C-alpha cells in the first residue's frame, strides 16, 4: 500500500501537476467557459438556477451570468426543449438540462420530430445549435425512473448527435464541442461518474479548445488502454468496468485493449475496426439493456467490417432486457468486471 501511495505522491511532486478535478466540475467549467466566450450561450431547465441543478452541474452559473442567461423554467420538459428550439432558431445557443434520463421522455416528440428534423426539412437553412444534457444510467442507487440508459432512442433518430464522455477531460472537451456544434447534440452524462476525480488541467484544456489546437473528439473513439489480445468496446458508464476488467486480465497475462466511443453519433468505425483487426477478439460492453441497442449496432458493424479478422464471435456484456432494477437489485444488472472477464474467457482462446 505504502508503495502505491508513495508512487502517487512522487508522480504528483514530479509533475507539480494539476489538482484532481471532478467530472461534474469539468462540465460546469465547460458551460461557464462557453458562456464567457459567447453571449448567445444560455442555460435553462428545472432547478438549474438558484439550486445549481439537482446534481449541481449548473452551480454558480446564475450567480456569474445572471438570471437572463441561467434560469429555471416551469416544470415541463417538452416546453423546455420546444422553447430551446425556437431560441436556437433565433440566434441563441441554448443548453437545456433534463433532470433525469426518464424525465426527458415528455420532450421526445420535440426532440425526434422537430429538433432532429429541422435542419433536413429546411435544407440546412435553419440550424439548431442546441445541447440537451441528460444525466443517465445507474450505479447510484436511484429509485424508479432515475436510472434509464436512453441513448439508443436518440442514436436511432437521424439528425441528432449523441455524445457521452467517460473521463474528466472528455467531459470538458466534449461539452465544449457540443455547445460549439451547429447540429443539435444530446449530451449523455453518466451520473455515477459525476463525482469521479482525475488530475486534469482545465485551464490548459480551455486554451486548447478555444485555440482549436487539438484534434476534435467528436467522431473519434479513443483507445483508452492499449492491448493486443482482445478489444473491449464501450462508452460512458461502461468504461470503468471495462478498464477494471482489462487490468485484471493483464494480471492473468492477457493484453486487452479498451476503446471508448466518446460519441455514439457520429460513430468512429475506423478506430473500432482498426482495433478489432489488430486483436481479432471483441466484447462490447454497455450498461443499457442489450436488445435492439447501441451494443447491437456495434456488433453488427464489427462483423460487417471485420469478419475475416475475427477469431471468435463478438460477445456482448450489457444490461438485461428488463426495466432498470430497484437500488438493492441493481448490482446484479450492471455489467461488472467479472462478467466482462467471463465473456473474454469465452472468446475461443484454445483455437
Amino acid at each position, binding site marked *: 500500500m505504502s508503495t502505491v501511495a508513495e508512487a502517487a505522491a512522487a508522480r504528483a511532486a514530479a509533475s507539480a501537476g494539476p489538482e484532481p478535478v471532478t467530472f461534474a466540475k469539468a462540465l460546469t467549467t465547460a458551460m461557464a467557459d462557453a458562456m464567457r466566450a459567447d453571449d448567445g450561450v*444560455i442555460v435553462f431547465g428545472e432547478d438549474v438556477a438558484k439550486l445549481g441543478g439537482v446534481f449541481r452541474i449548473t452551480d454558480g452559473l446564475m450567480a456569474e451570468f445572471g438570471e*437572463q442567461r441561467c434560469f429555471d*423554467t*416551469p416544470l*415541463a420538459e*417538452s*416546453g423546455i*426543449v*420546444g*422553447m*430551446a*428550439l*425556437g*431560441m*436556437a*432558431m*433565433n*440566434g*441563441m445557443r441554448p443548453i437545456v438540462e433534463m433532470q433525469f434520463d426518464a424525465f426527458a421522455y*415528455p420532450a421526445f*416528440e*420535440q426532440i425526434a*420530430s*422537430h429538433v432532429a*428534423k*429541422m*435542419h*433536413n*426539412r*429546411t*435544407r*440546412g*437553412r*435553419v*440550424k439548431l445549435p442546441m445541447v440537451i444534457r441528460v444525466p443517465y444510467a445507474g450505479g447510484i442507487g436511484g429509485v424508479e425512473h432515475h436510472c434509464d440508459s436512453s441513448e439508443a432512442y436518440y442514436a436511432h433518430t*437521424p*439528425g441528432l*448527435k449523441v455524445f457521452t464522455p467517460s473521463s474528466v477531460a472528455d467531459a470538458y472537451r466534449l461539452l465544449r464541442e457540443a455547445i460549439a456544434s*451547429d*447540429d443539435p447534440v444530446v449530451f449523455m452524462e453518466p451520473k455515477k461518474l459525476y463525482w469521479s476525480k482525475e488530475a486534469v488541467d482545465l485551464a490548459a484544456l480551455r486554451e486548447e479548445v478555444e485555440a482549436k489546437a487539438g484534434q476534435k473528439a467528436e*467522431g473519434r473513439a479513443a483507445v483508452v488502454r492499449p492491448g493486443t489480445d482482445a478489444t473491449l468496446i464501450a462508452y460512458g458508464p461502461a468504461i470503468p468496468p471495462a478498464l477494471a476488467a482489462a487490468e485484471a486480465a493483464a494480471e492473468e497475462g492477457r493484453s486487452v485493449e479498451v476503446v471508448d466511443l466518446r460519441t455514439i*453519433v*457520429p*460513430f*468512429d*468505425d*475506423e478506430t473500432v475496426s482498426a482495433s478489432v483487426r489488430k486483436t481479432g477478439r471483441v466484447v462490447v460492453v454497455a450498461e443499457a439493456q442489450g436488445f435492439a441497442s447501441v451494443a447491437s449496432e456495434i456488433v453488427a458493424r464489427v462483423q460487417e467490417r471485420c469478419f475475416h479478422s475475427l477469431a471468435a464471435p463478438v460477445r456482448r456484456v450489457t444490461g438485461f432486457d428488463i426495466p432498470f432494477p430497484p437500488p438493492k437489485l441493481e448490482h446484479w444488472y450492471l455489467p461488472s468486471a467479472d462478467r466482462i472477464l467471463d465473456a473474454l474467457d469465452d472468446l475461443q482462446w484454445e483455437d
Partner: protein
Amino acid sequence: MTIPAEAQEAVKRFGISIEDYMLPVHGQIQILSEDGTILPEDQRGSTPGHQYPVPSDKELLEAYRRLVIGRRVNDQNSALVRQGRLAVYPSSHGQEACQVAAALCLRDGDWMFPTYRDAVAVMTRGVDPVEAMTLFRGDWHGGYDPHEHHVGIQSTPLTTQLLHAVGVAHAAKLRGEDTVVLAMCGDGATSEGDFHEALNFAAVFHLPVVFFVQNNQYAISVPLAHQTVAPSLAHKAVGYGMAGERVDGNDVVALLAVLDRAVSLARAGSGPLLVEANTYRMQAHTNADDATRYRNEAEVQAWAAKDPLHRMRHYLTSTGHLTDDVETAFAGDAEEIAQHLRDGLSVEPQLDPQDLFRHVFTEPTPQLREQSAFLADELSREEPSQKEH
C-alpha cells in the same frame, strides 16, 4: 403576479376587475354583420376594456384584395390536387379572413408560426406560393426558408410549433428586440399538452406572443364538443394569467381590429394574449377526407351564409370603395397568383437522390457518406438497363 400595464389601465378606467379584463367577452367581437354592414358600437359584443377601433377603409380594401387572392389560391390548390399536381392540400376555404388577418397584423421583423392549414397566411406574409406548396407536392418536407420572411415551417404534428414561437419570442426579448410572434393553432390542437406548456411558458416569461386559435369547429371529424367543455377556447387564457378574446372568424374587420390591438399590446410589453376566432372549415379536412360522414349539409349551408368574402364585398361596394374596376383588378391579381401556382407546379421537380443525405447534419457523417456512395453506385448500375426500356 404581475398585471400588465394595459390591464391596470382598463381596470382603472372602466372600474372592472382584472378577471373581467382577462376573460373574453360574452359571445364574440363582431364588427361587420353577416349581411355586410358595420354594426353600431353597442352591437359589436364589446364590453368595457374590450373595445376595438374599426380599421381604416384603406386597410380594409387591401384585406379584401387578399381575401380574393386567398380564396383563389385555395380553389386553385384543390384543383391541382385533383389533377395530380399536389399530393394533398388542407384547404382553408371559408377561413380566409383568419388567414389574411394573421399575416396583415404583423410587421416585417415579426414572426409567424403557422399550421399545415395556413398556407394562405404563409403566402400573404410574402412566401412564394410555389415554395409554400413544396411540402404538399412532396418533393421535400418544406420548401421555403423560414428566416427569409420570418415564417416557421408548416408542420403536421399539432401544436408543437407554439413552443418554437415561444422560443423565438424569448430570444428576441433577451436581446431587447421588439419582435412579436404570432403562434397559430386550431381547436383540436388546444387538447395537446404542448398547448398548455406553450401558453404557460409564454406567460411565465412574459413574452410577446399572440396565440391565434382558429376554431373551425372540427379536428378532422371530431367536433369541438369532444375536445373541451370549457365555455370557449379563449377562456383558457385566464388560467395562464393572460387575456383571451373571442372574435367572429369570418369577419375580417373584427379580426384585424382584435389582432392589431393584441399585437400592439404584445409589442408594448403586455405579455402574451390569446385570440380565438370562430370560423368554419367549409371543405373536408383534406381531399382524402369525406366530411359527409360526420356533418350535415344544413350546418355547412348555415356557415356558407357567413362567408367572409361576401360580407366584405357587400360592405366595400355599398360604401363605394369597391368599384367594378377595382374588383376586376383584384380578380386579375388573384388569377396571376393562380397562374404562378399552375406554372410552378406543372414543372416536374428536379429530384436529386443525393439530397437525401445532404442536410441531415451540417456535415454528413462517415456513415451517411457511405450510404450516399452506396445509392450512387446502385443508381449508376441501374441506369443502362433503364435506358434499354
